[in-house]
């Protein structure tokens, strides 16, 4: 690169490169993309490593998503293209896809099968918690360079109004017809214009019956001094306050200061009994650190793979129901590949394989026949309609109302 024009070494390298590209049926543009993506990956590696479970990355690296690769291509691509004509045509407009998701969240073969079927190379990045996810997706206001992510449904209204997500082209997602009727027009995104529902779950709690005897039906066991030092709550402010709400008979979406103070008071009484506010309910339950832990239903399903005797309950006094979604980010470098990914994950067998892996039920009617009976037939993972009807969804709060929670959450934690 640095040699003078006409330098024999340079000419040789140029020829070799040309030959390599032709052999690999690669265009210069693709080579540049590959090199830049590699560079971005190398540069990102320490940051990604540092942020695993630490949540530091969003503030430390607001603009260093994989976006660093695709957008930076443009100028150099133009320069190269004008210097020499493209040797081979670009076989397909989009050969890559950047997915940003939870760890261990989809079927073990889902990525491989998608790559085999479409020839699109999937770059799969993971986040440790939803806060990290949101901070990164919002870092540049258009998705941090990712194509597809899995935000919780409660985030959708603000993601849509802030222009972080792209309106879906349903002609690319014919499998949308597989959705159950009750999932075709959710309140958070009417008509599924910007998102496709992915999984749904409950938030209850898991316990080890060897340490915590009895059949639990209420939230009381999480406040029982008998388990002191071995109780865990999720490191999630809205979910924790919701538990206090259910115990006190207060709406978990309340924004009333007096009610919030009551909830905080109850949680402050609980705190001395706690071992931790956990990011890793699965690991803490299977290692025995916790005897009883506030948990998501799918996490319990993963716990019992290691420790089959662990139990889970959706308390009858009220519990949270949530669902997540598949969205295309507004700054997606590969929006078509992104929608192909969404369509692929709505395929009955792929959708069922995802559910069979993680234990969360999906909204896919056509997938039902392929779902394991252990999941489909378990009322803790697939509760009957009468139970579902009583579950509460956490709604998105505007800044002024969210502050009421955050201030109390920090006061509780400090």
């Amino acid at each position, binding site marked *: 690169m640095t040699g003078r024009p006409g330098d024999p070494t340079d000419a040789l390298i140029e020829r070799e490169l040309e030959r390599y590209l032709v052999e690999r049926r690669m265009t210069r543009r693709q080579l540049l993309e590959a090199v830049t993506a590699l560079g971005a990956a190398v540069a990102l590696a320490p940051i990604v490593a540092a942020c695993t479970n630490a*949540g530091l990355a*969003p503030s430390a690296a607001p603009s260093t998503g994989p976006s660093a690769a695709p957008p930076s291509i443009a100028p150099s691509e133009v320069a190269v293209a004008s210097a020499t004509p493209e040797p081979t045509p670009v076989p397909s407009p989009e050969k890559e896809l950047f997915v940003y998701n939870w760890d261990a969240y989809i079927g073990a073969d889902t990525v491989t099968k998608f790559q085999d079927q479409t020839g699109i190379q999937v770059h799969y990045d993971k986040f440790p918690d939803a806060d990290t996810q949101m901070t990164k997706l919002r870092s540049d206001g258009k998705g941090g360079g990712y194509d597809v992510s899995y935000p919780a449904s409660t985030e959708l209204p603000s993601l849509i109004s802030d222009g972080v997500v792209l309106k879906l082209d349903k002609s690319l997602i014919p499998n949308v017809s597989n959705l159950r009727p009750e999932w075709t027009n959710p309140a958070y995104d009417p008509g599924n214009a910007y998102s496709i529902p992915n999984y749904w779950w409950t938030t209850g709690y898991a316990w080890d019956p060897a340490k915590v005897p009895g059949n639990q039906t209420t939230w009381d066991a999480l406040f029982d001094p008998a388990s002191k030092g071995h109780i865990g709550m999720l490191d999630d402010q809205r979910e924790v306050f919701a538990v206090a709400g259910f115990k006190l008979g207060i709406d978990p979406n309340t924004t009333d200061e007096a009610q919030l103070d009551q909830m905080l008071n109850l949680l402050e009484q609980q705190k001395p009994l706690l071992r931790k506010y956990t990011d890793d309910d699965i690991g803490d339950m299977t290692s025995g650190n916790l005897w009883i832990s506030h948990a998501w239903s799918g996490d319990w399903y993963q716990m019992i793979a290691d420790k089959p005797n662990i139990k889970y309950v959706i308390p009858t006094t009220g519990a949270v129901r949530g669902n997540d979604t598949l969205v295309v980010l507004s700054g997606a470098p590969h929006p078509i590949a992104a929608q192909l990914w969404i369509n692929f994950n709505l395929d009955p067998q792929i959708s069922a394989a995802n559910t069979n892996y993680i234990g969360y039920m999906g909204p896919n009617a056509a997938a039902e026949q392929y779902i394991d009976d252990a999941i489909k037939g378990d009322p803790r993972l697939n509760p009957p309609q009468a139970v579902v009807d009583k579950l509460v969804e956490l709604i998105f709060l505007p800044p002024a109302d969210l502050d009421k929670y*955050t201030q109390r959450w920090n006061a509780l934690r400090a």
Partner: protein
Amino acid sequence: MASPSTPAEAAAAPVAAPTPTAGRRPLSERIAGLVFVAPGVVWLAIFFLAPLAIILVVSLGSRDAANHITLANPSLDNYLRATRPEYLPAFANSLRYAGITTILSILIGYPIAYWISRYGGSRKILLLILVMLPFWTSYLIRTYAWMIILRDNGVLNSILLTLGVISDPIPILNSDFAVILGMTYGFLPFAILPMYVSIDRLDGHLVEAARDLFASGRGAFLHVTLPLTMPGIVAAALLTFIPAIGDYVTPDLLGGAQTTTIAKIIQVLFTSGRDWPYGSALGFLLMVVTLGGTLLALRTLRREVIG
């Protein structure tokens, strides 16, 4: 560290060695000095001052209804909110962990540094490499390793159970002890290296002279070695305390419900709280307090200890 010393040398040089041009160095030398110092200044400006300025500006802002940061009405409100007493326990935790970690690192590190310097012989370099060896593995991975060692079904509990010392696993992880252990483990090399340099530079003849004048071994250490290596101890304390007070990873992974630090509070404001202005204010305030406290401590130490 090399660059900032250049202007100091440049300033001191005329006094030390007057030149024919009456206290002014030749232009070429002054340009050379600027060239040497420029990379450091540019580096600090881009990677320290600019981010700091951004934090400062954001901390004066507020959020609109759509949760976007706006600077329409800059104010100090966020700083007033940041001084709320409810965060004091978390700040006290941060100070306590950093303080204990610093003291332990010096108490454990000084004898190691002393031993390597005095008895390391031809293996000094090897021993110093061993001190730095842990840095070859990511700090995060080493902290996870501590989680595996300390958890209820972990290595330590298994050994104690097998030996019959305990009959039920004892909770070690998610405690003050685990946090302090992890932090001391992590920061120890930062304490050893400056103390080693200081001890190694100490002129052995001074200790011999003290012994010749009938000082006991203990007396020579207390009155000669320790005061002369005090700069190394102070450097070790600073290199440990300052990063320790803002440490987020160790308390978060090894700590529990009762060990929240101020860094965690700031993290909550930036993530689930979505309040970057407030988080920036609290972060900036923490930095000012740390810096102020450090400068104050240094001045006192210089007067009282270093002399």
